[in-house]
């Protein structure tokens, strides 16, 4: 493969694609990126076997042709270290020479024919919406998904497509975040899939600032996200997602309400986290007329509390939560006010900062 390209442009796209590469793999080819050049167009493809990312750009400063499979980590470090405006890649024996300015690298690659083919989409259904809106939904939900494998389908995000609405739900079994967006999806019947977190993280990297249209397409085992210049394909998470509707508190399940300044509460939770300890941490929210006390105590460590003035007139109650669950939520939501609705110390608490998204958190009980 031969390639001449502006260095910054190449680096941006390489960085985004390479983020999906595993650092080590039983299939060494997966630690490579596939660089394909045709005229003024460059494509960089990376996959971990489940998520495939293909970034492409066209620029008049680009020329070359062919394909090369090069080690992602090494290539990325090399390009990052270069200071020239342009760089070039050229075959040399079985390897590739990477040059630009004062820099010279010789990189051993693999046979590009061995690089896994990008899975076909053959979409059965699909929809379109502004990328920023979708990334917003991801932001409001992804933090609640389970980080580890083991709890089946909890390490993905449920994407439910309704004729008039798109809903994302993530849960780790102890808390659940749901965010919905009114959008004319064009589908006739509601369906849902579970998308791996890592696939959505690739979209988050694109940023949510512009109103680029995002196309989402579905096939039996695959979801494909496309915006100009980027394609993300992810194998769906297998296994059943729990019935989230069954655990959504109804009005009667959360009769009491208090509204708090989000940042003020976030600060109080952050302080409480300091003295909550690492193992099985708990923060107590104590409500009494006009006041919310946020406190924590850990044997052998110490204690802390913050008193917030709030508009509350119900009975005295103390509910304990994992402070990390509250902290992540409060950090993520962009709105200034948060409403907390609850029943008692043993029941789910419901947090919301806008009409279309809710966060259900189970308490720590004795």
């Amino acid at each position: 493969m031969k390639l001449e390209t502006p260095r910054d442009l190449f680096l941006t796209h390489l960085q985004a694609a390479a983020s999906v590469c595993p650092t080590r793999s039983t299939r060494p080819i997966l630690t490579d990126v596939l660089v394909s050049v045709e005229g003024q167009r460059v494509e960089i493809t990376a996959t971990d076997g489940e998520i495939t990312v293909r970034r492409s750009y066209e620029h008049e400063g680009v020329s070359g042709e062919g394909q090369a499979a090069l080690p992602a980590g090494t290539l990325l470090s090399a390009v990052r270290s270069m200071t020239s405006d342009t760089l070039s890649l050229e075959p040399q024996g079985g390897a590739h020479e990477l040059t630009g300015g004062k820099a010279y690298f010789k990189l051993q690659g693999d046979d590009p024919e061995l690089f896994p083919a990008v899975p076909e989409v053959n979409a059965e259904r699909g929809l379109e919406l502004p990328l920023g809106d979708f990334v917003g939904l991801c932001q409001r939900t992804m933090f609640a998904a389970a980080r580890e494998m083991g709890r089946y389908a909890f390490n993905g995000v449920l994407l439910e497509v309704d004729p008039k609405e798109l809903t994302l739900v993530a849960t780790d079994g102890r808390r659940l975040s749901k965010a919905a967006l009114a959008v004319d999806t064009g589908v006739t019947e509601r369906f849902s899939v579970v998308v791996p977190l890592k696939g959505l993280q690739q979209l988050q990297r694109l940023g949510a600032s512009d109103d680029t249209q995002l196309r989402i397409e579905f096939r039996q085992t695959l979801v494909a996200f496309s915006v100009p210049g980027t394609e993300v394909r992810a194998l769906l998470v297998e296994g059943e997602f729990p019935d989230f509707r069954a655990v959504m508190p109804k009005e009667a399940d959360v009769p009491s309400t208090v509204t708090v300044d989000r940042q003020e509460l976030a600060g109080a939770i952050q302080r409480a986290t300091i003295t909550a300890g690492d193992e099985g941490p708990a923060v107590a929210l104590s409500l009494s007329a006009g006041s919310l006390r946020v406190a924590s105590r850990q044997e052998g460590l110490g204690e802390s509390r913050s008193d917030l003035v709030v508009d509350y007139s119900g009975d005295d109650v103390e509910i304990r939560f994992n402070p990390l669950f509250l902290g992540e939520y409060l950090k993520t939501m962009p709105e200034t006010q948060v409403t907390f609705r609850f029943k008692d110390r043993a029941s789910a608490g419901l947090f919301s900062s806008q009409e279309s998204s809710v966060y259900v958190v189970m308490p720590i009980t004795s």
Partner: protein
Amino acid sequence: MTSARLILHADMDAFYASIEQRDEPSLRGLPVVIGGLGKRGVVSTCSYEARVFGVHSALPTAIARQRCPQAVYLPGRIAHYAAVSAQLRAIFEEFTDLVEPLSLDEAFLDVTGSARLFGSGEHMARRLQDRVAEELRLGVSVGVASNKFVAKVASDREKPRGITVVPRGGEAAFLAPLPVRSLWGVGPATAERLTALGVHTVGQLADFEHARLCAALGDGLAAHVSALARGRDDRPVIVDREAKSIGRETTFEDDLVERASCHEILLRLAEDVGRRLRAAGLRAHTVRLKLRHPPFVTLSRQVRLDQASDDELQIYREAQALFDAARPSRRPVRLLGVTAADLRPASEGRQAELFGAAADTRGAAVREALDAVRVRFGASSVRRAGTGADTDPEAPGAS
């Protein structure tokens, strides 16, 4: 990352047997074997006179009797040994507050802060031996090193009444000639994988290419063993090991073969462990299974729970899952043990679940398994707490 430490590992020489010889002069100079004397009994310790005949701890007593019929066989007096062990601990604490007993007869001492008072590690080891000899009239071997692992290996080097000092920086060279099996965390399976890579000694392991090691062992284990192989071990000496775990095990007069029978025993052990956890106001974050195939292949498997638990059914189902995964089909089972470790006070509270048992895909399997046990052994079998009727004296209490 940590500042330079000085660690002693003190390991009593033939502790139980030496106590018997000390207390009963007629036993001195004779081979003495302490252990289970029943059909399934094993040697727990023996005097150096018996070791000459090939008797060693963990050897089935029946074989020991063949090898050394003239030895004096004693069942042992655990309560007495524990009392001596308490005296021993008092001596250790003359040197430092940081004493971590591993069992009745060995302990780690972090003497980093004591050097100014007592001098070099070797000097302290010498003094420790003198104190144990004059106070208890017993022998102890001491390893001196910059960390726990190397100190422990060192204490075993010159037994009895030996002192082995591994100077800082000399750890890797000291360990290099040892077989890889001497590393903590390298069991037979891992050793086999290392052998396949041509790695037999600790030194070879230390020099081995890390990426290939990761590929063979997985990142976590690879990092762990290569650190140990280079003589690195940052684990601190942990002072209070009181009630670090609550466990129960039982050895069978006749090996078990039926899966359901094994499950039933596990359930009884789990019930007992659960009951003792609740009685102590504790919950466990780790469930450990011990499984022995005849004649003497012992496996240990553990799982970390999402949430600390004192629920015997949960402990049971974790132990059962570990058992099913660890035991090759129908291989006879001689011993089963269930231990709850990583204990926390129950007062810490319990994180409530959103979806309850319905969302737990394993829930159904557990109920099925319980039902199967009930069908086979009658409804009472799964409600009755373990009676311990068929447990043997080696069953540990809170350890």
